[in-house]
């Protein structure tokens, strides 16, 4: 939301930027989109302003705008991460029942969420690591169960450990197959047949992707390089 970044990205860009830029390509004009906090929130930076995209924050605003200038914050207008935001023209305040009604009822065109694991069934685990501090699922389970498209935006592996695995070992977020998985190395589409490798990152080979993935990936023909806008 801050500003539109244009021009061809350098190969030297960060993993997060690659992911955010690639996810932004999935957004179509007029969509209603919910971005999770952290990495997913960066996606807003790469969506053209003239798309008329509305951002929903599950705490109660449709039409979330950029961070306000200093001194112009409204204590009653924050995003789901608690950061001050603004409201775009045409914004609407909603209560939590309406907010999750929109999410659960299939009115949300797309949600972008972080992930801990995604498995061959396309199931996501992203809210809990047993034995660690448990933050709670917040809105994640409703978002994954209810949004029209669920896009997982995460780094491909964590400290050398694969995150794209045969079967999630962490507690699932929902029984729903997510729509797309975007990492800095690959774009992967979960299908009824399994995980299909659709695209590879800039200057990344299929072999490198397979080496960092313990799940079986379906690779057919040439795998194009991802477009980063």
């Amino acid at each position, binding site marked *: 939301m801050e500003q539109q970044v244009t021009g061809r990205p350098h190969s030297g860009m960060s993993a997060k930027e690659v992911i955010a830029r690639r996810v932004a390509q999935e957004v179509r004009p007029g969509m209603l989109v919910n971005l999770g906090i952290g990495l997913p929130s960066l996606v807003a930076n790469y969506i053209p302003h003239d798309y008329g995209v509305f951002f929903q924050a599950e705490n109660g605003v449709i039409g979330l705008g950029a961070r306000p200038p200093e001194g112009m914050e409204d204590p009653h207008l924050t995003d789901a991460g608690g950061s001050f935001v603004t409201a775009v023209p045409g914004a609407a305040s909603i209560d939590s029942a309406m907010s999750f009604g929109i999410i659960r*009822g299939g*009115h949300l065109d797309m949600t972008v969420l972080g992930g801990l694991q995604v498995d061959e069934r396309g199931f996501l685990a992203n809210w809990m690591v047993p034995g660690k501090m448990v933050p709670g699922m917040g809105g994640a389970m409703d978002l994954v169960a209810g949004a029209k498209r669920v896009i997982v935006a995460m780094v491909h592996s964590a400290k050398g450990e694969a995150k794209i695995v045969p079967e999630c070992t962490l507690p699932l977020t929902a029984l729903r197959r997510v729509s797309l998985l975007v990492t800095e190395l690959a774009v992967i589409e979960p299908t009824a047949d399994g995980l299909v490798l659709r695209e590879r990152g800039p200057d990344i080979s299929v072999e490198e992707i397979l080496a960092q993935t313990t799940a079986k990936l379906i690779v057919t023909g040439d795998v194009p390089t991802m477009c980063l806008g």
Partner: protein
Amino acid sequence: MRKAIKPDDAAALVPDGATVLIGGFMGVGTPERMIDALVARGARNLTVIANDAAMPGKGIGKLVSAGAISRAIMSHIGLNPEIQRKMISGEIEVELVPQGTLVERIRAGGVGLGGVLTATGLGTPVEDGKQVIEVDGKRYLVEKPILGDFALIAAQQADYSGNLTYSLTAHNFNPIMALAGRMVIVEPELIVPVGVIPPDAVKTPGVIIDHMLARVA
């Protein structure tokens, strides 16, 4: 941004045989111009889900008179003798649903719930054929969600983002039905520029609206 369309063009979007949620309570808060356009296009075989059948010559009553309805899911038809006659003759199949249950079933459809549990209707003919479950020792009817192919609703103001406000007892089923139509067509009394309706005054966020009728020329 949504361009406003003419009632005839909106009516052309609604095919014969469609399931249509229509807002209003005895004709108050009903999209009259949309209904007129459906009658004019000769719509047939509609399943209409609404609080009531209004009265002959008003709101949904016009669809009844025009022979556009083959099935109705409503809470009250007592002020429209015509639908009562058509029910008895078999021309219109009528399912009567308690008003509070009807609005919760539509809401459940709109907000993606699999249904709601209610004590309303227990021990009455409303219970017939329904699943009954026990929760903490109390019995409840399982009432299923209702979705429409279309929701045809009336509003007071719209902006060109589709954000809506409603007036007094013309709210009734409209804000709930707005959530439960696969395609939502709104007939506002007034359309204002985006930004004119403050966020806190919006009762239906425009993102769930598909089309709106242009004002009377």
